[in-house]
């Protein structure tokens, strides 16, 4: 686990890293840790795959031009 005390700490750090919530110095320290710690690297890779699984399976939608036009008309009339 290197600089981390336990799995919970590594897991927290991995999540903060992927959520872009680490400071520059924390990020540097974490990347260094990943390079030297296979367990930490594995956890990061799995978490990245998990996030990708979410992103690819949540449908992206588009608001129809008709809907936007209808709202625009209501705003202008109201």
């Amino acid at each position, binding site marked *: 686990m290197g600089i981390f005390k336990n799995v*919970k700490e590594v897991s927290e750090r991995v999540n903060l890293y992927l959520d872009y919530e680490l400071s520059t110095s924390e990020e540097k320290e974490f990347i260094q840790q990943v390079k030297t710690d296979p367990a930490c690297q594995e956890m990061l890779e799995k978490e990245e795959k998990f996030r990708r*699984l979410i992103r690819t*399976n*949540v*449908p992206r*939608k588009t608001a129809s031009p008709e809907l936007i036009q209808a*709202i625009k008309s*209501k*705003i202008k009339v109201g």
Partner: protein
Amino acid sequence: MEKQQDESYEVFEKEFWPQADALYTFAFNLTHDDNDADDLIQETYMKAFQSINSYEKGTNPKAWLFKILRNNFINKYRSASRRPTVSSIDDVILSANADDEDPKYPTHVDLRTEIFDSMMGDEVTVSINSLPVDFRIVILLCDIEGFTYEEIASILGVPIGTVRSRLHRARNLLKNKLSEYAKAKGYIKD
């Protein structure tokens, strides 16, 4: 008066309309229904127009509109309990005053590698949709829309610590659901 209205239209053109697709994606993934999503979007923009004086031009239009949409959704659907996932949320959230050490909420759920290779898209979507709505909301805001914890805290009206722990629990719950699904389908063994 006319000048004020012109300014409002300008804010809509430059800052609010460009958020329509992201808002629609959020609305659809909350309601799972195109008509309900249409209604939510319409109500969100009408509310934005009515309360435009409380919006500070050039700040964070996306977060501001998402907050309106989320509040609208919660008021409309939670009070009516139209969605089964909505009514079940309180069981999860209200019992979650305990911290992360609570054995009910594991600190880390290790997802088996086989899951990534075997899960079909529909199965993942079903698992995501079956999450309690407050958990689904944080995942949508963070993982799909890329909001920061601070922005999510502002949208939900909760402290950053709550966002962090809710996200943690939401992701672990989703991992558990995916694992259960994979076991039931025989993709992985105990």
